[in-house]
């Protein structure tokens, strides 16, 4: 069944049940992935998924129900169940649906659209060959994966909101495995862009060099010394702790930032913005999960917390305007709050000058196990890390299997300098320069 027909059935059902305020959120995601082993295609998978979420206000409570199949039976089911589910709720905070008529910034033109399977196969095999050509240490198990994605979202409601968008993205995941005959190591880099014209040479080189760099890595010595966090490491931390900027978490005591707007919460050098149209992001967003137009906002400016992130409900409770940060973890999830692209503003030092300022310490390329080692409520973290020792301001020995421990709220004040160039990190959707932090504890040998 087409969505327009389904929408009509849902509307009729909602009216028949006497519902006055309701909304339909429809999302689809189409993907094609091609991965390689040795010099052959190993797996090709195409997925077509999506679903509808109906929500309605009953006595001021917002009930939700979702389904994947667009049929007359589902239309009736989700309306009835959403009404039932609303009756079960006890929360007394007023809920709202957005009205129509907003002004939306146009999305940048999409490059290339959804690529053909043949293009993905050819590109994956070419990139795979390029990884083997890059270095004789590259071994089987290396995988060049090409991914084409298209997602669509449409939101319409009884208040006249009717918005939709379609986005496409193509990505290469270059994941080399290298061996020196004694041990293996691996790494990955992600490149997005138009499939046909994608130039992956720099990405392949970077990934292979990163994997090779970890061969023979030592365990870092235990101690407290200056730590430089690379863009991927900062992205991991900011992603794990982005929930502290949610006004909902703050109001519920799950973030320590309640009532801190306008106060100093970070070092002077820290400026953090949320930019739904960040220049390097392959997935810009013109409206949020409630259909509100998105906008760029400073969250922290020169160390001062300028604003938390709001949706319609939390903004009304705080007597503010929504910041357009309503989000859904999936089409079937309730509306919550999250940033789009967090961008940490670059500082004044070149990367070389930043490392020199650090002197003797450790450079952390990346963290692992954030879902376990970073407590989003207390702010405490103790994370598996990999990177390089810094001696006299220069990267020396590769190090791995050590931890870096601290507290995120404290860390915001322990940042002493940032490098002058930000890098967009696809995993997490965060842009960051290298960051020098004092006062973290390193545990290793």
């Amino acid at each position: 069944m087409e969505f327009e027909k389904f929408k009509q059935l849902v509307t009729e059902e909602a009216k028949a049940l006497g519902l006055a305020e309701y909304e339909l959120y429809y999302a689809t995601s189409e993907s094609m992935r091609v991965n390689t082993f040795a010099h052959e295609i190993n797996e090709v998978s195409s997925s077509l998924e999506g679903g509808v979420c109906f929500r309605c206000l009953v006595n001021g409570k917002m009930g939700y129900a979702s389904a994947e199949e667009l049929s007359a039976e589902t239309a009736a089911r989700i309306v009835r169940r959403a009404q039932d589910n609303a009756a079960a709720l006890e929360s007394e905070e007023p809920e709202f649906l957005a009205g129509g008529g907003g002004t939306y910034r146009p999305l940048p033109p999409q490059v290339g659209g959804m690529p053909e399977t043949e293009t993905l196969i050819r590109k994956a095999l070419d990139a795979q060959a390029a990884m083997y050509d890059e270095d004789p240490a590259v071994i089987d198990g290396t995988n060049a994966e090409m991914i084409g994605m298209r997602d669509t979202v449409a939101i319409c409601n009884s208040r006249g909101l009717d918005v939709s968008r379609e986005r496409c993205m193509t990505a290469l995941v270059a994941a080399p495995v290298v061996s020196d005959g004694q041990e293996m190591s691996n790494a990955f880099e992600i490149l997005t862009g138009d499939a046909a014209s994608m130039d992956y040479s720099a990405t392949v080189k970077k990934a292979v060099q990163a994997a090779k760099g970890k061969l023979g890595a030592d365990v870092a010595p235990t101690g407290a010394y200056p730590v430089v966090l690379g863009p991927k490491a900062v992205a991991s931390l900011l992603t794990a702790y982005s929930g502290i900027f949610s006004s909902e978490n703050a109001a519920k005591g799950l973030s320590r930032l309640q009532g801190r707007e306008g106060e100093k919460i970070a070092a002077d050098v820290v400026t953090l913005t949320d930019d739904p149209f960040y220049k390097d992001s392959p997935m810009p967003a013109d409206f949020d999960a409630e259909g509100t137009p998105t906008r760029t906002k400073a969250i922290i400016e020169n160390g001062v917390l300028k604003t938390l992130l709001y949706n319609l409900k939390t903004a009304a409770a705080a007597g503010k305007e929504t910041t357009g940060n309503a989000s859904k973890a999936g089409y079937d999830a309730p509306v919550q709050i999250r940033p789009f692209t967090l961008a940490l503003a670059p500082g004044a030092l070149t990367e070389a000058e930043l490392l020199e300022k650090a002197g003797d310490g450790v450079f952390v390329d990346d963290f692992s196990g954030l879902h376990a080692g970073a407590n989003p409520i207390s702010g405490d973290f103790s994370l598996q890390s990999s990177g390089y020792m810094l001696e006299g301001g220069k990267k020396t020995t590769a190090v791995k299997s050590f931890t870096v421990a601290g507290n995120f709220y404290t860390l915001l004040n322990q940042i002493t300098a940032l490098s002058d160039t930000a890098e967009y990190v696809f995993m997490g959707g965060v842009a960051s320069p290298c960051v020098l932090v004092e006062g973290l504890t390193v545990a290793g040998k």
Partner: protein
Amino acid sequence: MIAREVCERVLQRAVSTGADYAELFAERTGDRTVRMIDRKVDAVNDVLIAGAGIRVFKGLRSVSASTVDTSEEGLLRCAQRAADALGEGTAEISITLRERVFGERHPVQIVPSSAPNTQLIEILKEAYFAAADADGAIQQTTGMLLDVDHNILLATSDGLYTQDRQIRTRLHLTAVAEVNGETQTGSVGPGRRAGLEIFGDLIDLKAAGKEAARQAITMAGAGYCPAGVMPVVIDNGFGGVIFHEACGHSLEASSVAYGTSQFAGKLGQQIANPKVTAIDDGTIPGAWGSINIDDEGTPAQRNVLIEKGVLKTYMVDKFNGRRMGAAPTGSARRQSYSYTTTSRMTNTFIAPGEDSNEDIIASVEYGLYAKDMGGGSVNPATGEFNFAVREGYMIRNGKICEPVRGASLVGKGSEIIQKIDMVGKDLLLAQGMCGASSGSVPTSVGQPMIRVSSITVGGR
């Protein structure tokens, strides 16, 4: 869900370009979560997931395609997409399906999906308020009750046509405590492959709530764990996450088949301390990670992975098994129809040993006692893993002393598994969700109390 004759026609279409194997996986899953925060029910997540995935193999190439359209026309289109992506050719096999019924090892008395919201809320509240009202130090509590009714259908070109219903129920609570300005959390998450009957004798709701609160308060009053290399005693239950991360993932065909596992090519070799026998058992009645059949239609098995330190078998799915020349072990799993199946764990645990808990604690002069663990992760190629200690205590002179917080353990699986040098007797399983390429699937971890003679403790 889908008639046998329709499945035959769909599979016939799927093999029309020369595939030597085809599989249709269809599902219809009701998934409901009731959530509480601030002492109130604030959300009921309620979704009906329905769709199908079709997979074809030709030699060492696999093609899969999924769709939300489970009408015959929709399935035929999906099969054609898979067949086209495999390449050009003509059908070499013909499909005849015969229905097979596998036994139900996991009887359910109270099917949660047929219970009204009010019944779920009543259960959740009993546990929730036991946590929220346990102590004045508890500042916030979040709770949820999960009801999953997962119905799957499998039809394969080797003639199998079968269905299975997988019902799961789980409670999850997180309590947030503040003691002298320090905020910490405590969590519990008991669940079973069973219905609402588990709440009562099997899972005491009030005790679960009090446990979350106790852990939060204990940790809020704790100092930071010191950093360094030391012996660590890891308690039973969720402590088993050490084997899951340090070793389990590296025994899955998804990394072994490609040589990207620290344990590839080591069958029959001593890879662990002789004290270690480790098992992945998908047949345990009612256990959280149990299945009747896996997501390729292979019956669940009890696989002894490591016996007295010697590697006995890997966990193998059909496609990766081709590359390895190994038979499937009932380990193929996927979160839903839109993920591509691969080999995964079910209920994985270290078998009971001979040491007493008292002897294990008494053997440590200075070290860490990890009473409860959080999750972790691993890079199977290198074996480097991490996991978090949710509740820890220092051990001094063979005695458990003050609580410590913020610790994590890191190491290399192949080294750590040799250092498990004491194994207790009190095996206990605990429940978690494991994420990998085929999505998030329910798995149990478990072990008796163990000692790791030395490991890096990430603290401050």
